[in-house]
């Protein structure tokens, strides 16, 4: 059940890539190289990393607009993800999608969707297709806590329960839906109670800063879904260090609160775990840090050197 040594090191490297990727994106956004909205995942990296190892490569994964980390965890090429941020034709969505609409069909990463809750029935449909054909894949549907208050959530979970669809519904509870705290927006602050209403087995308050705990719960949930018994619901508690998007004044929380949460950083925790358990030396981790840095810098260079879409691209792919 535990991660292998290689996976443990790879997971560290992956989380560092995601962290540095996004820190650089924030800078590039400020410099005007990246446009639109930019929703950073910083603080939540352990969940994407855990999902990578808990799922089979041919399982489905779908998420909302805070999707960079999930895309990188699903091994979408870092170069192409960065190129998409720049709106370049070499981007994963050919520059048509941007930050919020990353996807890769061959890796069964189905997006990157930017309407809160809108991807949840899509997740049900992805799972339905597999169940219909008798394929034993599961679908992991990641969502924010804010999406549990919208109609889509309830319709999708109800349908999934009625049809025993093989979905792992995973709420990344980062404690704020935009700027509104869960306790101010949701009638019940224990989000799993909403899934219990649909008769779904749940796990509440998984520590999303703990890579292994999150990995183990997703794996257990995926096994349940794969066994044909239906959906499983997870609430994973995490925290985003940055604002909802760029330009968030963050009037809803104190700088002190953010600093306190940073002390519980998932990457620092994982590094400490690796050292304590003699899986990696400080030197090894520093080497992985450098690899991550190099990978992100190479991606920026790739993106900068890539062409923008040709004018003709405007009318391409409106219809299949």
């Amino acid at each position, binding site marked *: 059940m535990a991660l292998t040594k290689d996976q443990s090191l790879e997971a560290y490297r992956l989380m560092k890539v995601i962290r540095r990727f996004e820190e650089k994106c924030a800078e590039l956004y400020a410099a005007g190289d990246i446009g639109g909205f930019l929703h950073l995942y910083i603080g939540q990296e352990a969940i994407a990393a855990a999902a990578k190892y808990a799922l089979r490569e041919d399982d489905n994964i779908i998420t909302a607009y805070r999707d960079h980390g999930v895309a990188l965890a699903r091994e979408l090429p870092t170069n192409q993800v960065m190129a998409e941020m720049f709106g370049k034709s070499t*981007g994963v969505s*050919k520059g048509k*999608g941007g930050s919020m609409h990353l996807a890769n069909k061959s890796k069964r990463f*189905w997006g990157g969707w930017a309407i809160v809750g809108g991807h949840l029935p899509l997740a049900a449909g992805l799972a339905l297709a597999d169940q219909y054909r008798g394929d034993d894949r599961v679908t992991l549907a990641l969502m924010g806590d804010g999406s549990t208050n919208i109609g889509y959530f309830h319709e999708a979970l109800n349908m999934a329960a009625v049809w025993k669809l093989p979905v792992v519904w995973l709420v990344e509870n980062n404690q704020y839906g935009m700027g509104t705290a869960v306790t101010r927006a949701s009638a019940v602050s224990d989000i799993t109670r909403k899934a219990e209403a649909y008769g779904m087995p749940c796990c509440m308050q998984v520590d999303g800063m703990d890579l292994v705990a999150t990995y183990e719960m997703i794996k257990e949930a995926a096994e349940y879904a794969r066994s044909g018994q239906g959906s499983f619901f997870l609430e994973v508690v995490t925290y985003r260090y940055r604002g909802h998007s760029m330009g968030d004044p963050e009037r809803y929380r104190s700088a002190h609160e953010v600093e306190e949460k940073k002390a519980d950083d998932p990457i620092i925790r994982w590094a400490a775990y690796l050292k304590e358990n003699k899986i990696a030396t400080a030197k090894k981790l520093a080497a992985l840090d450098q690899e991550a840095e190099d990978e992100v810098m190479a991606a920026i260079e790739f993106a900068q050197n890539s062409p923008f879409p040709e004018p003709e691209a405007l009318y391409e792919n409106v219809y299949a």
Partner: protein
Amino acid sequence: MSTLNSTSAMSGETVTKTFREAISDALWEEMERDESIFLMGEEIGVWGGTYAVTRGFHDHFGENRVRDTPIAEQAIVGAAVGAALNGLRPVAEIMTINFLFLALDALINHGAKAHYMFGGQFTVPMVVRTTTGGGRQLGATHSHSPEHLFAHFPGLIVSVPSTPADAKGLLKAAIRDDNPVLFVEHSTLYQTRGQVPVGDYVLPLGKADVKREGTDVTLVSYAKMVQVSLEAARELEKEGISAEVVDLRSLRPLDTELVMESFKKTNRCVVVEEAHALYGVGAEVAARVQEEAFDWMDAPVKRVSTEDVPLPYSRDLEQSALPDARKIVKAVKEIL
């Protein structure tokens, strides 16, 4: 003056069918042909469909392929999009287009945009069937004909058949197409009859059709209003006025070629639509005519539309709000 119907374009054996039977046949034949096609919707299975289109399907194809859903339009359309992304060809039924407002986001923001937004890597081979139309005393919330709203959005195809043969041929094409198609069936056409080709009959999506030839005025219409326009044309004929009836058959793509061809012959046009006039099909056709055939215009393009009110319950009051042959005849005479 000849009266055309779709049989003129048909070859081979035909049989008389109702609009309902034609749609049912298309679904049945396609499901027999391709196992990746399945149906989902409210009351389509055990009940057999509130308009009886899918009667017998549940017993024959089983509940994996004919799925009764909760009353949850967002989930129905959203799940159809997801299943289509993942390789199936769902045909989702939304009981009436009035309920489709609830799933507007799933249909437009998700279904219609997925192909473009992700750079062409995804396709959504999905059909959403629904019913439309007023005139049945169902009150304001159940009597819209808002199919043109959906035709506003690139990425979606909106099909609006007027005859049993067209319904069969267009539905088969919609199911086989790799794009999301909104297939709109007028609820008062279900009992109408016409000649329908036996077996595999597939029409191209997005091609208009001349339903009646004429020389003095072009009536442009779609769905049930084609039948009303044909009735008006028969009235006009008695007075020596020859009306050509062009059936758009599809609101997106909009085939204006045939409209222009007809207009350049008649030089006059009335658009008949069972929707409100504001921002509607008539407005679009009129704009295209003045852009593309200005030199052929002998009169302003007229619109016959539903009155600009929510539809009332009381029978005569409701009927007075809807387009009818008398209103079309009057409009034609105003521009002759």
